[in-house]
């Protein structure tokens, strides 16, 4: 499942999406809002997303994972809107028959999400705010 939601993320159901009898390993990644960036105290983050396209691109990441690791299963949730420090912005769960593939596939998925899924975050500090620039998309 590939989903973008405004609601708080619960990793439990994401793990269950990928659990099956052939999976000997499940790797789960949580991206969490940190309280500082480059020495500045972060109050909260605001995520903006091109929602319909973001869900499509998340599914593409899933297809890429399955093309490389055919025995893997993957489920992804990304949150948008306002997130407080300590809240979960991203959950990626990947299962595979063995842990090596599960770790690698999960890492690959996170990297690709950050390259192609159109989501942006604004950091709000005590004394200002700024939209962060990450990866330029290779068109």
């Amino acid at each position, binding site marked *: 499942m590939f989903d973008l939601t405004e609601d708080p993320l619960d990793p439990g159901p994401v793990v269950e999406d990928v659990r099956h009898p052939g999976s000997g390993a499940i790797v789960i990644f949580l991206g969490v809002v940190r309280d500082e960036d480059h020495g500045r105290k972060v109050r909260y983050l605001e995520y903006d997303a091109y929602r319909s396209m973001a869900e*499509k691109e998340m599914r593409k990441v899933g297809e890429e994972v399955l093309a490389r690791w055919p025995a893997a299963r993957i489920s992804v949730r990304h949150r948008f809107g306002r997130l407080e420090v300590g809240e979960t912005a991203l959950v990626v769960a990947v299962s595979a028959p063995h842990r090596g593939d599960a770790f690698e596939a999960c890492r690959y998925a*996170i990297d690709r999400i950050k390259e*192609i899924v*159109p*989501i*942006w975050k604004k950091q709000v500090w005590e004394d200002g705010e700024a939209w962060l620039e990450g990866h330029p998309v290779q068109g």
Partner: protein
Amino acid sequence: MKVKVRLFAGLKDLVGGPEITVDLEEGATVRGLEDQLGREYPRLKPLLASLAFAVDEEYKARDYTLRDDDEVALVPPISGGCDV
């Protein structure tokens, strides 16, 4: 012809809204739209080179030919997930 241009993140603040309509000549490419945006919205100009363009939710190269009524999204460098 007219295309609908969708804006996100900081671009929305720069242009003053999430959506604009741009008039283009028939057969205009993404590059043509980029040039037109630079003329109509000088504040966008320094950012245009760093943007990707998505037409009807698919990333397209600058030589892609637009059609009337296309929805074009300006995609600034992505910063999803948590750490950049």
